[in-house]
């Protein structure tokens, strides 16, 4: 679905007068392959290049080296631009910057309307997408009366209404409270299961990636770790060198291992830890 080969993105560094004083390489030889319908998480510290990578997935940025294919389409091909954008929808950090309608259902209908979808079909899609994110009862509400988690789910519905095969979420929960974070992650999970949408999630919350099929860790424009959540989170010390963390449950298990309990590495969920401790008793 998303396939990058030796992807490079360089941009010019300029001084105050706008003269080029050098180049920065934000992405440096990245290879990734995301199968249709899978859930992929990208971790990395501020400035590691993960948002730049995400912006390549719907051709907001195009590579300066290597190739990015979205559903088989080269994102550098100008004739494919709209197809690429329709294939991969993006959701950003701040819900307030993404909502434009004065009524929830109008906001969600904006995308398909722009695509020239017939009116009847638009309303059907609006209803479907609001249902998918659990926001149907708010269809007539004003977005500014909603909580952060609700707004973010409306933003996701707006993307879903364009029927993309892939949805890229760039820190969608960074500004939300615990409940809002849960709502958004649940809505995304549901979309993947029910609509087989490919999900790419960029986040700083380690707990949100434990259900991912693959996790990529980025540092300085490179992919430095790649594996299942269990593989990645069993490498606690290595993760910390990349300014990352592990879920609190994993950290507790690690601490107990250090104190002599014979627990397996890479425990991710609360139930797993409790079961493992029960077996030791």
């Amino acid at each position, binding site marked *: 679905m998303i396939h990058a080969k030796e992807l490079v993105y360089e941009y010019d560094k300029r001084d105050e007068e706008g003269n080029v004083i050098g180049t920065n390489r934000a992405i440096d030889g990245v290879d990734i392959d995301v199968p249709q319908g899978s859930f992929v998480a990208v971790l990395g510290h501020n400035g590691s290049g993960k948002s730049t990578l995400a912006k390549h997935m719907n051709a907001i940025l195009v590579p300066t080296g290597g190739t990015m294919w979205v559903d088989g389409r080269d994102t550098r091909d100008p004739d494919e631009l709209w197809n690429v954008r329709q294939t991969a929808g993006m959701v950003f950090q701040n819900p307030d910057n993404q909502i434009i309608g004065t009524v929830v259902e109008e906001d969600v209908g904006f995308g398909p309307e722009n695509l020239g979808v017939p009116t009847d079909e638009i309303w059907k899609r609006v209803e479907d997408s609001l249902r998918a994110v659990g926001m149907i009862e708010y269809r007539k509400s004003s977005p500014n009366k909603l909580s952060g988690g609700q707004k973010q789910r409306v933003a996701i519905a707006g993307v879903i209404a364009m029927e993309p095969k892939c949805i890229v979420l760039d820190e969608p929960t960074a500004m939300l409270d615990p409940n809002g974070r849960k709502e958004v992650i649940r809505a995304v999970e549901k979309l993947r299961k029910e609509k087989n949408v490919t999900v790419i999630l960029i986040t*700083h919350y380690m707990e949100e990636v434990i259900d991912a099929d693959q996790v990529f860790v980025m540092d300085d424009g490179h992919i430095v770790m790649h594996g299942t959540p269990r593989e990645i989170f069993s490498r606690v010390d290595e993760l910390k060198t990349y300014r990352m963390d592990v879920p609190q449950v994993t950290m507790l298990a690690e601490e107990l291992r250090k104190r002599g*309990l014979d627990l397996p590495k890479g425990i991710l969920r609360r139930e797993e830890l409790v079961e493992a401790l029960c077996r030791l008793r």
Partner: protein
Amino acid sequence: MSIALEHVNYVYSPGTAYEKQALKDVSFEIEQGQFVGIIGHTGSGKSTLIQHLNGLVKATSGRILYEGQNIYDEGYDMRKLRSQVGLVFQYPEYQLFEADVLSDVCFGPKNQGLSPEECEARAKEALEMVGFPEKYYRQSPFELSGGQKRRAAIAGILAMRPKVLVLDEPTAGLDPKGRDEILDQVEYLHKETGMTVILVSHSMEDIARYVERIIVMNHGEKMLDGSPREVFSHYKELEKVGLAAPQVTYVMHDLKRRGFDVLPDATTIEEAADEIMKSFEKTRSSK
């Protein structure tokens, strides 16, 4: 030496269609030197509450006493209050505006009427306090990384040498290491200077790790007020209002239900690990 709120009410746009009571009869007292966390769902009144602490928003009714004096008294020196109760807003880096970091941090003390030399000394002291690298002092604040911008913005408040530091989600959007660095630095400042710190956060894990007291806000009212252990033992009520306990607290409750001899109120990894190890030692010695 304290900040006290007495029956504070705040109503937005009274008499209009948008009228909304954002704070309802809120009372509490924070002693000088406490490290307090404020939690609550989006729209629970946290941000409105902290804007009352330095007089940015005026209560519709009720009193606020700073060091025993009612800040709403006629002739009260609001300017002084604002330099003593320093407020760091969410995403404070959006408020950086000077040509270089040092000038930006000087802005607060300059407004306090200090001489340029004093301002610079204060700014350097503040930047050092937040662990901001000296080599970037003359750089434009817009060229810094997310974590460094955040530090520069916090330094801008510290340069006024406040007695109370109020931080509204200081780690939002930072990577895990960046979160730890900022909060460790705040904890260090609190210990070194005896400054009161009031931390608003959506991370229950961070709150549990750093603060000694938690105030929980819900729909404009104070819902709970106590130590992390006390507050997070009400995890079921917290969930009903959009919050949660730290993950380790849930693990402890699960273990308790499964027959482990543990006190379930641990809120940090260390506390939980201590309690689990204790229970294993007990079973071993009884065998």
